[in-house]
């Protein structure tokens, strides 16, 4: 059961502000999708190895050789806000 409390917790983990009817609708949607997903419980997977990579590729490396990155102009071309060669964000209070 997806409660309002669960939606609240998950949305806070996902840093997604939800409120009012939107939160209620999402709770219902999640409930429906998870209900559908529950069909996986019918399978016995105790001895099955999980697949996180579909191809059997291993050991892909890069050599430790430097290459040029972005110029300052490129690095800030998309910046929302910048100051002193840095990306500017609201002050973080520890």
């Amino acid at each position, binding site marked *: 059961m997806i409660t309002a409390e669960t939606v609240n917790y998950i949305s806070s983990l996902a840093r997604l502000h939800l409120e009012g009817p939107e939160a209620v609708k999402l709770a219902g949607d999640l409930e429906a999708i998870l209900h559908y997903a529950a069909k996986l419980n019918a399978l016995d997977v105790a001895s099955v190895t999980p697949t996180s*990579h579909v191809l059997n590729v*291993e050991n892909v490396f*890069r050599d430790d050789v430097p290459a040029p990155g972005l110029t300052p102009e490129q690095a800030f071309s998309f910046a929302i806000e910048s100051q002193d060669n840095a990306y500017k964000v609201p*002050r973080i*209070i520890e």
Partner: protein
Amino acid sequence: MSTFETVIGLEVHLQLKTRTKIFCACPNVFGGTPNSHVCPVCLGLPGSLPVLNRQVLFDGMKVGLALGCRINTFVKFDRKNYFYPDLPKGYQITQFDFPIAQQGRIAFISGGKKKHVGITRAHIEEDAGKLVHDAAHQCSLADYNRTGTPLIEIVSEPDMRSAQEAYDYLTALKLTLSYLGVSDCDMEKGSLRCDANVSIRPLGEDRLGTKTELKNLNSFSALKRAVEFEAGRHEGVILGGGQIVQETLLWDEAKGRTVSMRSKENAHDYRYFPEPDLVPFTFDAAVIEDVRRTLPELPAAKQARLMTGHGLNDYDASILVQDPALADFFEACVSAGAEPKKAANWLNGPVMKELNDRGCPLAGLKLTPANLVKLAARVEDGTISNLAGKDVLADIVVSGEDVDCVIAAKGLAQVSDDAMLVSVVDEVLAANIKAVEEIRAGKAGVTGFLVGQAMKKMQGKANPKKINEIIARRLTHG
């Protein structure tokens, strides 16, 4: 006497000094203009993908082997998800269930006793960026130069029982790591960083108490003070009938206390899952053995060898191994004919003083083993005094000149002409009748004063031992 014992485990982050970052080809260098070493990958731009730097895996293996760990032959990477402006992707690529190394152990001396601390694991991960807080503009500034610096995180078992043990563990760990040459191991620059997990429990209790995690321990002394403070705080809370809340705390060095990190609330559910953008890594035992063969002799082994092979005592050997260059220099001196104990005395005494005074590493001096051995021999055979020896040392570490040339140029050779020394001694005796009377009355300690007077007249160019002998002879026969 407290009825509680403190339980400490450390998480140490070691920055590797590879040429490039862990997942991209940006140069891995300290500092620089903010965001001058960045690319789409380390900026976490949409569409960018990580590719592992080969060297990082090998350096990780080295660290694991040096800490006596089992190296896993199957290694993978995972994502640790949390939001923070120093983390451009919103997740950190790290290792969760298949780290590079597990189950090691490190041994060291603490409080005069041998201590073992277990190493739970060493895993590879990427460093985050740096945030500078600008109070004037009410903003924080993100610099991603450091983002993607390769890190090895070394997690210890909760095996330490005092702040001093934690301090000694970190000291021993840093020494071992510094031998590997994979990192600068510099706490001030942040290439070695330490977090501490602290809990207390009643003496005799087996179960662990609730822990708090201390961050921002920027020096060895900060570690010690923070752990002491936090253990005391726990005790106060518990004795006051309260409960410790599991949380992350920041050490405030200026105020000497730990403070809660509000901004990292709710960040404990990291939703780890396998990193789909990096494939797994496997290697057979032969590769691990190849890496093991490249390991230098580690401090514990070197110390043991200096003691058994050269007859040094524990103290001398332990000082020499603090600096692998110093220990190597010592061995070169012995090979060049020096008597081991004497060479150790020179290195741990006057040479160490030169290094401290100049604030430079051994490589910064123009001292060669052959020259130091010669200097020791000249003092030993009485050519120059001990004092003059130190003078010569101060010269040759800078000039690199031959010891004999320096002695000649400075006119430091001791006068060995007996007749001259006897006449100087007689002058001193004549001028200090009172002292002579006191010696004759049995106050042997006054002799030193007379030797000093004679040395002064000789402007230091005499062997004090010889003057001592002459004084004794004149006083018995006179």
